[in-house]
């Protein structure tokens, strides 16, 4: 029993640091770069994604014995798209501000590789409880990474943090940081910092192991 608890705890925590989906496994780059102009949006996007991830992981893992292997990718997509529609309604009803600022990227959670990758790699092979823990852990890791990105970009780019003005920087903000170019730059520096801190060889390739198409992609000769 104690053993089982340990492993559930492991599923829960591994997503936060060791296998952080954004900073270590490099999944879900599009929303990471697009919505993190403010720390607040980063948290909103992170929580919305966590919700979808939790829902889709639970359903996928509950249905994993029913879904035939051949049609699993379309089935996963439909499950995920349903949850995205659901969270779209919830946000529109309760937090319209956030709904407006996330805009099209809320719809694009459907094709976020984190959710797809977790359904394929974890939920389709593990039980419901373990999958739920995995989803929560990955979701928290994603939210933290987005919050970090959003904070850096908002502080340097706008001289504000969570709506509060920050003295000195607020007078001369570096606008570049809230523009697309700053997003790429910030993410690059943060990943470099994570590499340095974790003191290991940096990943040479993108997270191909997490990509459901790794096999096909390998044929193109770009992904090992």
């Amino acid at each position: 029993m104690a053993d089982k608890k340990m492993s559930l705890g492991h599923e829960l925590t591994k997503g936060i640091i060791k296998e952080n989906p954004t900073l270590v496994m490099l999944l879900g780059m599009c929303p990471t770069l697009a919505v993190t102009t403010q720390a607040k949006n980063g948290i909103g996007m992170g929580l919305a994604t966590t919700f979808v991830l939790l829902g889709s992981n639970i359903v996928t893992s509950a249905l994993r014995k029913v879904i035939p292997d051949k049609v699993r990718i379309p089935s996963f997509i439909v499950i995920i798209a349903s949850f995205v529609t659901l969270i779209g309604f919830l946000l529109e009803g309760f937090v319209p501000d956030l709904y407006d600022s996330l805009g099209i990227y809320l719809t694009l959670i459907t094709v976020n590789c984190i959710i797809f990758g977790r359904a394929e790699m974890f939920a389709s092979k593990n039980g419901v409880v373990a999958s739920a823990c995995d989803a929560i852990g990955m979701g928290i890791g994603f939210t933290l990474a987005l919050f970090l990105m959003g904070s850096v970009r908002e502080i340097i780019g706008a001289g504000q943090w969570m709506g509060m003005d920050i003295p000195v920087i607020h007078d001369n903000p570096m606008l570049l940081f809230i523009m697309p170019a700053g997003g790429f730059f910030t993410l690059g520096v943060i990943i470099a910092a994570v590499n340095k801190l974790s003191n290991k060889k940096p990943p040479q390739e993108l997270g191909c192991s997490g990509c459901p198409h790794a096999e096909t992609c390998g044929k193109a000769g770009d992904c090992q």
Partner: protein
Amino acid sequence: MIILLAAMLTDNFVLSKFMGICPFLGVSKKLDSATGMGLAVTFVMICATLVTYPIHHGILVPNELEYLDTVVFIMVIALFVQLVETMLKKCIPSLYSSLGVYLPLITTNCAVLGVTVLNIDNGYSFVQSIVNALGGGLGFMLSLVIFSGVRKKMEYADIPETFKGVPATLIAASIVSVSFMGFSGLFN
């Protein structure tokens, strides 16, 4: 015309809307695979627009089912990619051998879903939607091709150990993105 150029340059999907970053970083290592991926994406974007636009305005709106957009569109794209793959394999094997491997990757490319949803959100007409898809696809290809050139140079650069690999690629992408900022304000 303005929509075409705007979608290609000022609103470039990769560099200013951050859609399709995964293929942008993954497939931009070699020039020929970047061109292949770009062509395949352009093709699927146009076809997906051709199919989803009538579905949205012909079936979903009259029945007040607009909220099903996401679910329906992603299914259409997934089905469509499968269909194109099978057809190319049968009819034009030479094109299949050059584009085929990229097709399955496109289902989960957010730029394709993005362009269909944006066409609806912006209230474009049918022709405008197709032009927007064409511009988006060409812009995607343009940035992929430019970036593959940048990456080739980077292979010979002496980069600090910590920044090797992905961080250096991202920072290079940031610089390419700055150059595209020069186009902003070209159209209103």
